[in-house]
């Protein structure tokens, strides 16, 4: 019975059921969607960046003038510097802190699942909402930190966390780190758990100290995961928007403006779509490098 079904169905198997035809029929709808809402806007963004295009008015082609204007704009260079400082320091802090978090969680203790769930909270709660809480923690008049600092003898009203350019940059870096730390922690923990315990034991038998075990056993084995997590996080930190938009709006005196927030201000605030698009596209060389590196790396794995 089964045999006859096989033969007859093989014979009647249609053109639609060929592997390549079926595959492309499945792929076509989502690919068309992505082409329309990612591919097209991406190309249209490049086209916009070559135009003088005030909002709700037709644009005129101006070639590379927007980019030339960016490069002469001192704010643009400040923004570029801010973005690199923000990404660099926050990534470093997240990598080191995340490694610490992973090592702390890779021990035996009670209520492990509950504690892991709680430690992940900063990463899953909507960023805007936790950022608003941080804004209140750092409030110029009612900061809880300053309340304690003043009682420790710091002159009133205490440091202006978001009003001083350097402190504001430090604050957004710390908050970004606070939010991103669990991502590193949980991913690196998963990596730590794939390291066979025999390797630790062998190293211990050979007389390695705790630090040496970490340096020569754990770190080399963790390196591929650390690399992927870091690349991921660098891409999204580099293009960060909401934290800065909510907390400082790029201020004080552009000290915390990033590419994304500056592009937003130019396009949505000042209504200069072309100029805004050119600032956003200025992220592309660095981003493209990271994206290509990470895509190839993920593909190879």
């Amino acid at each position, binding site marked *: 019975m*089964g045999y006859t079904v096989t033969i007859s*169905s093989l014979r009647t198997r249609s053109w639609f*059921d060929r592997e*390549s035809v*079926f*595959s492309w029929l499945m*792929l076509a*709808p*989502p*690919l068309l*969607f*992505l082409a329309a*809402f*990612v591919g*097209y*806007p*991406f190309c249209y963004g490049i086209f916009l960046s070559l135009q003088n295009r005030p909002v709700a008015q037709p644009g005129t082609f101006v070639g590379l003038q927007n980019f030339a204007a960016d490069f002469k704009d001192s704010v643009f260079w400040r923004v570029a510097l801010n973005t690199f400082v923000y990404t660099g320091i926050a990534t470093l802090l997240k990598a080191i802190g995340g490694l*610490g978090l992973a*090592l*702390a969680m890779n021990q035996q203790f009670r209520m492990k*699942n509950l504690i892991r*769930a*709680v*430690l*992940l*909270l*900063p990463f*899953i*709660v*909507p960023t*805007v*909402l936790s950022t608003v*809480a941080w804004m*209140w*923690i750092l*409030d110029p008049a*009612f900061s809880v930190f300053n*309340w304690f600092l003043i009682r420790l003898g710091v002159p009133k009203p205490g440091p202006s966390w978001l009003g001083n350019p350097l402190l504001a940059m430090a604050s957004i870096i710390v908050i970004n780190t*606070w939010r991103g730390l669990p*991502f590193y922690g*949980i*991913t690196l923990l*998963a*990596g730590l758990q*794939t390291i066979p315990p025999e390797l630790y034991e062998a190293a211990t038998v050979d007389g390695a100290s705790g630090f040496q075990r970490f340096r020569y056993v754990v770190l080399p084995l963790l390196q591929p995961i650390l690399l*992927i997590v870091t690349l*991921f996080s660098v*891409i999204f930190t580099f*293009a960060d*928007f*909401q934290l800065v*938009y909510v907390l400082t709006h790029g201020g004080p005196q552009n000290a915390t403006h990033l590419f994304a927030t500056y592009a937003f201000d130019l396009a949505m605030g000042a209504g200069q*779509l072309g100029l805004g698009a050119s600032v956003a596209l200025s*992220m*592309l060389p660095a*981003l493209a490098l990271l*994206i290509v590196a*990470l*895509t190839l790396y*993920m593909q190879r794995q």
Partner: protein
Amino acid sequence: MVDGRSRVARLLRVWVPLGFFLVLALFPFYWMAITSLKPNAELYNTRMMPLLVYHPTLKHYVDLLSETRFLAWTWNTMLVAIVSTAISLIFGGMLAYPLARMRFPGAGLIAISVAAVYLVPQPLLFIPLADLITRLQLGNTLSAVILTYPTMLVPFCAWLLMGYFKTVPKDLEEAARIDGASHLQTMWRIFLPLCTPGFISAGIFAFTLAQNEFLYALIFLTKTSVRTVPIGVIAELIRGDVFYWGQLMAAALLGSIPVALIYSFFVEHYVAGLTAGSVKG
């Protein structure tokens, strides 16, 4: 004696770092909760110890729910997150199945493009998308964000599901094929039911991402009635230089609860999703 000392040392080694990370992670939430319960007289009195509440009140919650459209924003957020997650799971599955299970010319190129699209951050696209949404006359409709959220969620779901699909053994599908089932039947009846955990992981992850989204919602939703929670909170509880801190913290806490609840039920799946990309590769 020695044993006791080493036990203390072990306790210190485990709980001091964990305690540090727990306090760090939880303090902002504690601060949200405590602020939302303080009457204004206490909130703005710098003489009182700020870490405690002396006269707890629910006034800020009552005001938040009666004076603002918070419930409407919550409804919008849920609706948008659920619909865009559903779209993303369907499209993501449609991308992942052929890429993970079939051989056809062009597969490698498509897989690379999907991964690359996932990594294109929103700030690169929001200006042209704003123009596109205006031309489609979708401004101030939930459709604007329902259509744009999947641009980040589809590639993400596809990538996650591909990883999951590859771990499923091929025997059952091959048996179904030999029994004469078409590719569509094999996928729908045999394969997909095996992949429910993968869909839950991707779904939870996509849902939290959609709840978290800010930039597109900020640009496309400027009317109170269509706003989502993050935008409503920022745009309407901060009026000029006036901050309604009690209500803001109440909103922040209430807005965090749905995600936190859903996530706590599926935390294993969430962690599986989080680590799939980097560990399984």
